[in-house]
């Protein structure tokens, strides 16, 4: 397919808007040709996952943009920064490299990126609206933006997300285009009692299942109960992007592009469907925990992806009512903007009597933050439970939020939810 630039874009590529824009356009054009996009399209926002240090090349790239007078053309947020990510053994950092990793974060700010350092930019004032064309990195943010909000992005990452921000353009392909957003595979929940409340674990398990079975297809979920808040859809999407590479899902009657089953599939019904039954949910959840109930725990980790205002509003009263004491630390990852708002409201008053550790700008599954890495950690996050054993070497117990707090109080894995 021939690749075409507008007159403006050709001028940008020739350097008429500066060296950084020309560099960004050169890379975007090559990327667009490789994915078969016929042209570029304007975007309104970007979210950059480039603050993770993969070596000198990451920093040299951003420095080239800074030296070329680069400035992001659209409101741009930054994902969590961590000096060293999922494979710590791959990036053996010296002190000089550590300094480079820090420079990576400040260089992005010099390009005009907002230092949000959150994996949940959709919880900030930079949240896109339905139908907006955006270029986002970070798997959970991508699936949330596409599915829950109905904004449009492909899975962007290293180098390309920043090129999109600096050019204000993205290749016109994939999920940016209406015709590629319809469902392709149907998952039907069957055999669930009507009166059962929509637990967090149900959403996590459905996410894990569709992620592992959908492959490259857009999954549609039929029969999902209405979520308590959008955080349950956040958990579902994060799990689906963890066990697989889901960038968009539809939940019939719940997400904006799926008012009906027919709409979700764009009028073309699927050949068949995959049933999700209570036993499948139980099996998926069972595989998340690597220890039996009753095992002693050394920590609780919440907020992967970052804890929202609604989650804090549910968690804090629960904490005060269940008074877990100080023996087991409870780590909560959250965005710095969310924390500032909580502090301004005085919502955290009195939490000093608990062993609460609030973590911002990064995440407890990425970097060695936990005081003890030798024991079992309890979490309500499917994403945390999936990655932490490999990244950190810890054992994991998965449970509902209430179970996590009760286990912190007991010092071992207990379940207070049915």
């Amino acid at each position, binding site marked *: 397919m021939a690749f075409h630039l507008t007159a403006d874009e050709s001028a940008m590529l020739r350097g008429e808007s500066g060296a950084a824009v020309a560099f960004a356009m050169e890379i975007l054009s090559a990327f667009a040709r490789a994915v078969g996009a016929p042209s570029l399209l304007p975007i309104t926002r970007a979210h950059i996952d480039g603050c993770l240090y993969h070596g000198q090349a990451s920093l040299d*790239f951003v420095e080239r943009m800074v030296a070329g007078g680069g400035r992001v053309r659209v409101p741009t947020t930054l994902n969590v920064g961590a000096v060293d990510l*999922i494979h710590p053994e791959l990036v053996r950092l010296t002190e000089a490299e550590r300094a480079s990793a820090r420079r990576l974060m400040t260089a992005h700010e010099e390009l005009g990126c907002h230092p949000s350092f959150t994996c949940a930019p959709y919880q900030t004032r930079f949240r896109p609206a339905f139908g907006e064309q955006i270029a986002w990195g970070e798997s959970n943010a991508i699936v949330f933006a596409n599915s829950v909000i109905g904004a449009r992005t492909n899975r962007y990452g290293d*180098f390309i997300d920043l090129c999109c921000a600096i050019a204000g353009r993205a290749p016109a392909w994939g999920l940016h285009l209406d015709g590629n957003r319809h469902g392709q595979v149907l998952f039907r929940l069957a055999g669930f009692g009507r009166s059962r409340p929509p637990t967090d674990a149900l959403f996590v398990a459905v996410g894990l299942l569709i992620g592992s079975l959908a492959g490259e297809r857009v999954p549609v979920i039929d029969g999902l109960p209405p979520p308590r808040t959008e955080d349950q859809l956040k958990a579902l999407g994060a799990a689906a992007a963890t066990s697989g590479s889901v960038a968009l899902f539809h939940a019939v009657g719940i997400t904006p592009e799926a008012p009906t089953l027919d709409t979700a599939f764009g009028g073309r019904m699927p050949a068949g469907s995959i049933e999700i039954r209570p036993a499948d949910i139980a099996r998926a959840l069972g595989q998340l925990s690597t220890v039996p109930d009753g095992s002693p725990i050394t920590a609780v980790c919440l907020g992967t992806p970052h804890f929202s205002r609604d989650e804090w509003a549910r968690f804090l009263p629960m904490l005060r009512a269940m008074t877990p004491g100080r023996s087991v630390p409870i780590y909560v990852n959250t965005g710095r903007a969310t924390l500032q708002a909580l502090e301004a409201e005085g919502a955290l008053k009195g939490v000093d009597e608990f062993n609460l550790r609030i973590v911002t700008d990064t995440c407890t599954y990425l970097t060695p933050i936990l005081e003890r890495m030798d024991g079992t950690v309890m979490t309500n996050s499917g994403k945390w439970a999936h990655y932490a054993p490999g990244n950190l070497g810890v054992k994991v117990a998965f449970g509902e939020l209430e179970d996590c707090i009760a286990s912190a109080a007991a010092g071992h894995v207990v379940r207070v939810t049915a």
Partner: protein
Amino acid sequence: MTRTAQSFAEGDADALALVLSHPLSFWGGIDVETGRIIDRSHPGRGQQVAGRILVMPGGRGSSSSSAVLAESLRRGTGPAGVVLAVPDPILTVGAIVAQSLYGIRCPILVCPIEGIRTGDRVHLSSPGTGTGHLELTLAF
């Protein structure tokens, strides 16, 4: 024998082929210090990509592979060139970034890869866009 190919990253290269039966993700798959394949689940584990023409069905996995390819080229542990059966945007970006930042070329061509075996001598001529050529000299 010569094959015509689609060109995605510019450069000329002449080296021995390393043919992988499965796509390799550079992120989590290559040790940038040595150029060895370290992905435990990959059949090519332990093989050396540095200085070879890497031939594989396609790219795979995390977009962080762009940065890892660029970093391996910077360190001199990356491949001399890449031949894929289908285009891969992630590796293309990594090669273009390495060329822009360091002037190191890693030509990327896309063409049928049947008949190329590890140890064959491969010459790539890749203009960056349009059509390039792959010349194959069989090892035996």
